[in-house]
């Protein structure tokens, strides 16, 4: 196996990411550890969504819902531990297991119904389901309704890892990202991945050569949901806060933008997409320029929007097309 230029670019990115806590220590600004943590969590969610969109051609427009589910499990656990003294609900393993189980069940239900439709109907129905979850969260007064829920206590991992330590949390997130990257690499190159990609490519022929794609697509949908739920578990621990806004359909749209930006059906694409999307947002919003009394930074999306259109129009594979060498498909 020859190592391509792209291999070194990807490796360099991962090495830089591995060093982030030390780099920010050295720069004396721990703000960036938090920002990069956030980027990596969303990259994990975007990677899982790319299994559906990039490899499977299933444009799910409700993927942020699972992030919300995972985050609410942590939030609700912390709430009852804090308010009612139910300590076991703070147990990180209990919270993690519940997150994965609830995400799986919700993805199974949403997928089982949505995957009977195609194209724009699939997009609309997945979005509708995620909005149902959003409005459910808005409606539940106990858990803060639309104000959300402050998490006073992070998941208790029983001494294995201390999530209150920003560095430990960062490395948990980073290692999770590596694991999800590797999982995707294996999945996409496996027989299962072959069926998922083949169905995107030519569903009619898949049936003709003897496949019933539905059960494979549903499995992919559930896998993606579980991983995004896990991202939510991490997100709640990072931000100490959970609100319905995390599940809003525009958050799902952000994930899709990251995938498109990074280059669809490309293993590292969602990671590049997440990095660029959030870094750019951060940079543009801190432009210290004022024109006619209006702060440019405050309207950064006016710059970001056209930039996005430019990338999508002129680089069909997103950032992937700007990097030298050829991106890994699997």
């Amino acid at each position, binding site marked *: 196996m020859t190592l391509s230029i792209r291999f070194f670019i990807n490796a360099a990115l991962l090495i830089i990411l591995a060093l982030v806590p030390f780099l920010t220590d050295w720069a004396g600004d721990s703000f960036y550890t938090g920002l990069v943590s956030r980027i990596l969590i969303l990259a994990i969610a975007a990677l899982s969504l790319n299994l559906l969109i990039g490899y499977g051609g299933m444009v799910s427009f409700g993927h942020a819902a699972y992030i919300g589910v995972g985050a609410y499990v942590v939030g609700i656990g912390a709430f009852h531990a804090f308010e009612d003294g139910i300590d076991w609900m703070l147990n990180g393993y209990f919270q993690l297991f519940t997150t994965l189980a609830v995400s799986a069940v919700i993805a199974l239900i949403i997928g089982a119904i949505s995957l009977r439709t195609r194209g724009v109907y699939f997009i609309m129905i997945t979005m509708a389901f995620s909005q149902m979850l959003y409005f459910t969260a808005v409606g539940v007064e106990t858990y803060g309704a639309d104000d959300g829920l402050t998490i006073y206590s992070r998941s208790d991992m029983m001494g294995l890892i201390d999530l209150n330590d920003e560095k430990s949390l960062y490395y948990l997130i980073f290692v999770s990202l590596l694991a999800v990257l590797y999982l995707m690499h294996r*999945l996409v190159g496996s027989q*299962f991945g*072959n*069926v998922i990609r*083949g169905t995107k*490519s030519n569903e009619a*022929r898949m*049936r*003709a050569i003897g496949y*019933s794609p539905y059960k494979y697509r549903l499995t992919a949908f559930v896998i993606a949901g579980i991983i995004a739920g896990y991202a939510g578990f991490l997100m709640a621990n990072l931000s100490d806060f959970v609100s319905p806004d995390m599940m809003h359909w525009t958050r799902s749209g952000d994930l899709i933008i990251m995938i498109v930006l990074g280059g669809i059906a490309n293993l590292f694409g969602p990671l590049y997409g997440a990095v660029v999307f959030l870094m750019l947002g951060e940079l543009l919003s801190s432009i210290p320029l004022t024109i006619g009394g209006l702060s440019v930074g405050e309207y950064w999306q006016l710059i970001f929007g056209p930039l996005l259109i430019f990338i999508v129009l002129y680089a069909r594979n997103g950032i992937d097309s700007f990097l030298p060498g050829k991106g890994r498909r699997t």
Partner: protein
Amino acid sequence: MTAPDILVVDKLVKHYDGLLATDDLSLKVREGELHAIIGPNGAGKTTLIKQLTGEIASDSGSVLFGGKNIHRLSESERSHIGLARSFQITSLFKDFTVLENVILAVQAHKGHSFRFWKKVDQDRTLTDPALDILRRLKLEDRKDELVSALSHGEQRQLELAVALATEPKMLLLDEPMAGMSGEDSARLVGTLAELKTHYSILLIEHDMDAVFSLADRITVLVYGQAIATGTPDEIRENAEVRQAYLGEEA
């Protein structure tokens, strides 16, 4: 003694909004036979193939394959009992390589695909059979090309390779020579002549030279009805056929 029938189509009917695409059609294909179906455009040839593969449901009538009624079987189940189809309009996995196209078809017949870890391209139980088929169809040296890099003739060969990779008992070939150059069709006639020694084949084709040189028997379809079935010689002599079909071309 003649071979038993592998495919028995009995009084098959399909309506499309008042148009009778398949009209009380009966047809028998013997085991090991290459049975050609000819007929003018719009005679219902592709509709018949779609009814046989289960892509579209029949209004009435029955189809027996290997003595079993396959009425209730889905398209993918029919593939698993040994019916394979090639498409009139090339239907491949365009962003896959030649080898990956064939592997996908081989994989479909190696049990379930809930295998999440092992790399497909390192799995000899998938790559070996796929390479065998590519060798048979003389596409082996193109195995790592993307489908889009193949010539039209090569794509038609691959179309056939994918069908063969499903380990069929019977091939339903829908105009395999569509759009081919003379040279390519001559090559495909050679391939089909070799294939007919291994498979029962139902061949739909407009290339009359190919049909009359390859077919054991021919059925002539006009407006969804079989107006005649017989050996190539019988069909050539049949007055009704000459008037309905061959006459038009002469």
